């Protein structure tokens, strides 16, 4: 049992886990993730059985990848939380242990004086011991790797929460209308437009969020990189679409109606005669003899939109290509084809409170932890009338610096201990 525990808390186990995560990550980028089984059968005819059996098609959500991450968390808990006691204890008597070290670099009495002046100038703390002085700097640096490991644990845990707890839903909504979410929160879309910035399209919606308790956000434009966050909601400009638009006038009573056409539909009063709307094409090509080829996809604005419709009048079906501005009369109904309307696809993300704040906190902690670990290394320098010794977890930098500044005669550590 103790052996198992020791293994679980060992750095060796941590290293093995990191290697495994690395290997699976490589596989997860070499084999495209998240496609259908048929896709793998087609692209990996000889290996698709293995890919499906080992879930190499969705490696990052496979049970074994999650087990490795859980084990890494366990290992991190052990190597950070359990080590903190020994780190604190070691930090407590580090000066005394440094005082017991042999002198490694011999200096002249003037050299020693210059060294002590320098150590004071760089704000080292001095402690008088029996036959020497121990100078120290960055004692808190001892806790750097503790902070780092703890923050990695926090990043994994809060990161998992931030990835899996939020609810994300996509909505389409025309300008001038609104989307009402389950809890009564309303997202109003005032305007949508596509900006064409030197050939690179940018999509922008002008929106406002009103929460179920009546509080409203500011009204502003959202676009890529600039979502609108309010309450637990964040609304993103996700996609856009283009729909047909017709004005239908009834000649019998003079009434008219504007209609949006975003799917195949039959517009009719009696269910017999009327207009079948089939599709809206963004553009067309016309050859010299007048034949028209419809273009089915473009990015951005529809340059030359064409409506593909069927006129149905008393059982006679006539296919028609109609252009914005044109009118088509079918019995007593007049259909006027308008310029298409562009509308946004909004992504609404609802995140439980505190998760994002916790995640950002753990990011900051991790950066700070690494900074302290690497750039605030604790150093202890024993100075006696004969010379000095620099010690600490990574004393190399201080040793090189002092050796550059003060030279001195280095005594071989091995010789000294013999």
């Amino acid at each position: 049992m103790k052996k198992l525990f020791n293994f679980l808390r060992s750095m060796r186990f941590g290293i093995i886990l990191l290697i495994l995560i690395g290997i699976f990550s490589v596989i997860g980028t070499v084999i495209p993730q998240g496609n259908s089984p048929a896709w793998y059968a087609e692209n990996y005819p000889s290996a698709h059985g293995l890919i499906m059996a080992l879930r190499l098609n969705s490696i990052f959500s496979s049970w074994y990848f999650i087990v490795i991450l859980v084990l890494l968390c366990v290992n991190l808990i052990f190597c950070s939380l359990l080590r903190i006691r020994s780190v604190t204890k070691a930090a407590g008597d580090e000066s005394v242990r440094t005082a017991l070290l042999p002198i490694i670099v011999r200096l002249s009495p003037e050299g020693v004086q210059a060294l002590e002046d320098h150590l004071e100038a760089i704000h080292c703390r001095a402690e008088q011991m029996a036959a020497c002085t121990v100078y120290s700097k960055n004692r808190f640096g001892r806790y750097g790797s503790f902070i780092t490991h703890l923050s990695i644990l926090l990043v994994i845990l809060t990161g998992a929460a931030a990835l899996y707890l939020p609810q994300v839903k996509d909505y389409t909504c025309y300008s001038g209308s609104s989307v009402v979410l389950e809890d009564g929160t309303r997202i109003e879309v005032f305007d949508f437009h596509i900006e064409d910035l030197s050939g690179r399209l940018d999509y922008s919606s002008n929106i406002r969020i009103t929460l179920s308790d009546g509080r409203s956000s500011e009204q502003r434009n959202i676009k890529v990189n600039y979502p609108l966050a309010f309450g637990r909601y964040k609304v993103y400009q996700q996609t856009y679409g283009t729909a047909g638009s017709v004005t239908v006038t009834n000649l019998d009573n003079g009434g008219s109606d504007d209609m949006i056409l975003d799917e195949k539909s039959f517009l009719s009063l009696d269910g017999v005669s009327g207009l079948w709307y089939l599709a809206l094409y963004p553009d067309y090509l016309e050859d010299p003899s007048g034949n028209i080829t419809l273009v089915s996809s473009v990015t951005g604005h529809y340059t030359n939109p064409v409506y593909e419709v069927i006129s149905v009048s008393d059982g006679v079906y006539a296919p028609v290509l109609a252009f914005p501005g044109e009118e088509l009369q079918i019995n007593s109904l007049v259909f006027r084809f308008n310029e298409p309307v562009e509308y946004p696809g909004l992504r609404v993300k609802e995140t439980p409170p505190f998760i994002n704040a916790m995640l950002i906190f753990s990011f900051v902690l991790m950066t700070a932890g690494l900074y302290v670990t690497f750039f605030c290394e604790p150093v202890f320098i024993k100075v006696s009338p004969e010379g000095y010794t620099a010690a600490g977890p990574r004393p190399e930098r201080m040793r090189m610096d002092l050796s550059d500044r003060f030279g001195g005669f280095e005594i071989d550590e091995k010789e000294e201990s013999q």
Partner: protein
Amino acid sequence: MKALFFTVFALYAISVVLQFTGTAFKKDKLLKAAWYIFMAACALHLVFIIVRGISAKRLPLSNQFEFANAFAFGAAVFTIAVSMKMKAGWLRSVAMPMALLIMTYAALQPMEIKDLMPALRSAWFGVHIGSAVLAYSAFVIAGSAGLRYIIASRKENADEKMLKQMDYLGYRLVTFGFLFLTVVILSGAIWAEQAWSAFWTWDPKEVWALITWIIYALYLHLRLRRKSNERFLAWFLFIAVFVVFFTFAGVNTLMHGLHTYG
């Protein structure tokens, strides 16, 4: 502007040729000339970056050319800073060609200035990509220190003190690079959430940044183990450079994902 870039490129190339000739024939004067030309190239490189930034009216870090160009500049700056501050002249014969290699890659990329695409217009752009330049440059020069260690340790009467310095310098550069790669990944996550709504999408570029990060975390831990020997760690640093290159260039060319920007 192209002329300025190729002048910088030519100066780097000349300095590397002189460095090799000087080393081969043990001519100190040539080595000195190589070094001054390299520093001049680096200064002119900075001018090129500033001019490009001014004419593009943004940070010149947006496409493969600009990133590679900044990466080469970063490698050159690290070479100069480290060899001056730590008196590590021995680094030059490996680090200078490394900067030239990255510069060559930049020279092979399309150079025209394009407007920043909407997805990249964000305050995070500078933090994320700037940190990546710093991290990659530090790793590449750490790999150079590793390679220099491997070469030096083959000699029978290798200078122990110098080997220690090479090992430590590699480590020091990794700590610097590791901190910045962490900033790259974390700022990337925050940015991804602003742009695409999810902090992490397992996009190939993200995953390779994570793999690179794991590799250097392994290095840091292996170095803590008393059993690991310095030669092994030097090889580790050198080989890790290929992973950095792959994350930087290979992922964009060989894998498809959200990070494929023009």
